[in-house]
């Protein structure tokens, strides 16, 4: 039911442990609460009725509205990669490899991770602040009181929207990265777009492209889950909202980077 009755009265809890132990307790408590949170979410997500309208709204709010930011970040990555690798490749006399290097580097790693981190900054903070504010002003209680499940209405819609939108946003980042990589390259030494693309994708297989793109669905899940979780357990007025927003960004970025390490290795194992 109410997710954080204990959290509201944190001051009442005994705090006579040494700081290191207290930290460990909080650390494990956090994961424990996250587990309960995920369980409630799964339970609510699959039971009808479904909140299609709110889901569509979140696709737009969290996904479409992140597009300009993601496109810009992708483009900047393309420009930087093109500038940096060009010199190195020239010194090895391997200038002709530049399109391939740029394309592979963007679709395999730069595009996905940049998208994950940028969206984490925008969306996780947004969700954390929004749900945090709703929590401390009792709007989430009001929702429960009117017999609407906030896990279904608020959490499931946001988490799913993030999972769906992240791979799509990654495609956008990849696209703009490659286009602007070509533009940068062509400004130094003109090369036709067609030749650039042909060279770039010559050795790219579908298995180079699909797993890294779809792994961002996991980043999306992390962003949605952490943002909603931190928001729903916010307590203590404006300061609580601020804490929820900040910790959402910090934790989701951190988990994205850690998950990336694991996912890259898994992809190497399963898609050699």
């Amino acid at each position, binding site marked *: 039911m109410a997710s954080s009755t*204990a959290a509201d009265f944190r001051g009442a809890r005994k705090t006579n442990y040494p700081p290191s132990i207290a930290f460990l307790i909080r650390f494990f408590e956090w994961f424990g609460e996250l587990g309960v949170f995920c369980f409630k979410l799964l339970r609510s997500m699959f039971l009808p009725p479904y909140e299609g309208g709110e889901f569509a709204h979140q696709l737009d709010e969290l996904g479409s509205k992140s597009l300009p930011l993601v496109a810009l970040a992708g483009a900047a990555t393309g420009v930087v990669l093109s500038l940096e690798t060009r010199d190195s490749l020239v010194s090895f006399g391997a200038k002709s490899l530049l399109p391939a290097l740029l394309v592979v580097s963007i679709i395999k790693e730069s595009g996905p991770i940049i998208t994950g981190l940028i969206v984490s900054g925008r969306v996780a903070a947004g969700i954390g602040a929004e749900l945090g504010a709703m929590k401390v002003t009792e709007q989430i209680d009001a929702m429960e009181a009117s*017999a609407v499940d906030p896990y279904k209405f608020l959490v499931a819609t946001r988490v799913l929207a993030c999972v769906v939108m992240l791979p799509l946003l990654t495609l956008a980042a990849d696209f703009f990265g490659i286009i602007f990589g070509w533009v940068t390259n062509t400004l130094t030494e003109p090369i036709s777009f067609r030749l650039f693309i042909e060279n770039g994708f010559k050795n790219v297989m579908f298995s180079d492209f699909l797993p890294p793109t779809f792994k961002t669905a996991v980043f999306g899940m992390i962003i949605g889950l952490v943002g909603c979780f931190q928001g729903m357990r916010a307590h203590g007025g404006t300061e609580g909202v601020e804490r929820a927003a900040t910790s959402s960004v910090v934790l989701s970025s951190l988990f994205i980077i850690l998950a990336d390490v694991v996912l890259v290795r898994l992809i190497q194992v399963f898609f050699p």
Partner: protein
Amino acid sequence: MNATMKAKNSAPPIQVKTLYKSFGDQKVLSGINLEVAQGETLSVLGQSGTGKSVLLKLIIGLQQPDSGSIRIQGQEITGLTREQMNEIRKKIGFLFQNSALYDALTVEQNVAFPLERHTGLPDADRKRRVRELLASVGMEKELDKLPGQISGGMQKRVGLARALALSPNILLFDEPTAGLDPITASEIDALILRMQTEGDITSIVVTHDLPSARTVSDRLALMRDGQILIEGSFNDLQESKDEFVVQFLNRDH
């Protein structure tokens, strides 16, 4: 009224027995007993932090008691699943202390929110119902405003309209007049009284506003240290010799 409804209504709408609730080391409720009869309004008075709001949140299942029993229209609600509890919640309207309107939604959408989710009303009928509800609290002209654009008193009115959306049998008010000027507060009191007489509604009003409690309620209960110290009519409370009761009643005089 059909037979099953009658059977349900024979039990008191709200019955609370030996309810205990604490947060960490802090005991909030220690053995509360309450019963509210059909159509009756009970005001629960007490100092801030005596667990009045917690009592309401336990009754609507936002929090779980440590022990004790809560029956709504005869049905035990402690230990129900979310889905079972939601069926009960549809019969209960809750007005939050700070109204707790959804600040991303307009006044109209706020009131429509429970209707959209729990009634199969077609759009046109739902719109009409929302307008009726808002008209009944005098807010029919502010349909498209956001909660942030209207005053605290107006937010309370919209909150009341939202609480009434599903035509509840039971209304719970958490400090309905807190933070309002005396004139707006008495307008809210008048609204509460009207809702009760029009709808045969059973209600609990948690408040520390004595004049308001006196106006809207049939019976008062004064809480202290997580228990009901005294309950009865306003006159009963006035006749009490208990030092705390005397002190509580006479602050403003």
